């Protein structure tokens, strides 16, 4: 059972790390602010979600696991709002130019 959980953790965290890597590549390579935001939100939302998912069996209890999920939900909320604000600012700036 513990072997299965370990494999699950490793697979989920590796998948999460892949999304972070892909998001970072997009952040560096994409041409403008809106597409870069698009790349970044994938890393934040899905990458962190998968890392949290992989850490859940290792959290050592229900309460720490719930805390991990709460952190993911808070990051989801924050990144959604912040990308809205950055996107709006970027659009306003491109209109001014």
């Amino acid at each position, binding site marked *: 059972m513990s072997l299965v959980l370990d494999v699950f953790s490793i697979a989920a965290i590796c998948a999460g790390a892949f999304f972070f890597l892909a998001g970072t590549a997009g952040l560096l390579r994409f041409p403008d602010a809106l597409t870069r935001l698009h790349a970044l939100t994938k890393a934040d939302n899905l990458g962190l979600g998968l890392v949290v998912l992989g850490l859940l069996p290792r959290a050592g209890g229900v309460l720490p696991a719930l805390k991990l999920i709460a952190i993911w939900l*808070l990051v989801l*909320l*924050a990144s*959604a*709002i912040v990308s*809205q*604000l950055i996107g*709006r600012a970027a659009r306003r700036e491109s209109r001014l130019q």
Partner: protein
Amino acid sequence: MSWTLALEAGLAALVLGVAVWTLSVRQTFAAVVAFVVYGLALTLVWVRLSALDVALTEAAIGSGLTGVLLLGAAARLRATEADAVAERPGAGVRAAAAALAALVALALAAALLYLPEPAHTLAPAAMAELPATGMRNAVTGVLMAYRAADTLLEKVVVLISLIGVWSLAQDKLWGGRPGLLHHADPDGALAFLARRLPPVGIVAGIYIAWLGADQPGGAFPGGTIIAAMWLLAMMAGVTDAPPISRRWLRLVLVAGPAVFLAVGFSGFFTAGAFLAYPVAYAKALIVVIEVGMVLTIAATLGLLMAGPPERSDKP
């Protein structure tokens, strides 16, 4: 072993790289962003060193709060930025500054290399007496019991820095509301966040402050989170900063140091010395001080970030 070494070397390279970026970038705004990133990288270093209390404080104060303060400063300096960039110091001044910085770095490195091995430590003695303080987190024990005078003065210093910010106000605006009025879309994303997040953030701040007795946490990181929630609500226009002449505000601002001082002076009668706690009530007294501190820290940091009074209280 080699994996941890690679991680640590990578982390050190990241911190140094971001530090160089912070110093070398020309725009003030970019330098502030680099400084915030530097603080977050430093937080990871503290986590790696198992100093979780320091990591929490670095993330909350060193990176978050200072970052917001510097962003405000950068926004105010925007009008004069072009002149400041154009005004480049002469070669002599720059060489002298570089020599001084190199000398300080060398002295620090030498001091670090010539530390006695094993290093002198008071940790065993501190841990041995910790049960008497009622704390299980050694950092809180040191801050609130062994070095209580330092902690008290630190809180007073934060309060004095707020008075320093307020003293920048024009005479006719004294007692008015801090900062400029924020115009945010009342149905926008920021206003949404400012309504939804503070209930969670305030609970998290109180939780982290309460946890400080037994685990990493404490009044400073907890109070900073609450201050951040207040600032968020102010920036989104959900609430307005109170005029600094309000009596309740002044009371909240002095609550922490006042409670601390009251407990400290009562130590003369109950335990025979200033800031000494009677062992039976040590934990209760420390918790009372911490509650006052969380209030004061949250209010002081929130008002520090809001800035000096810029609007008259009278409409």
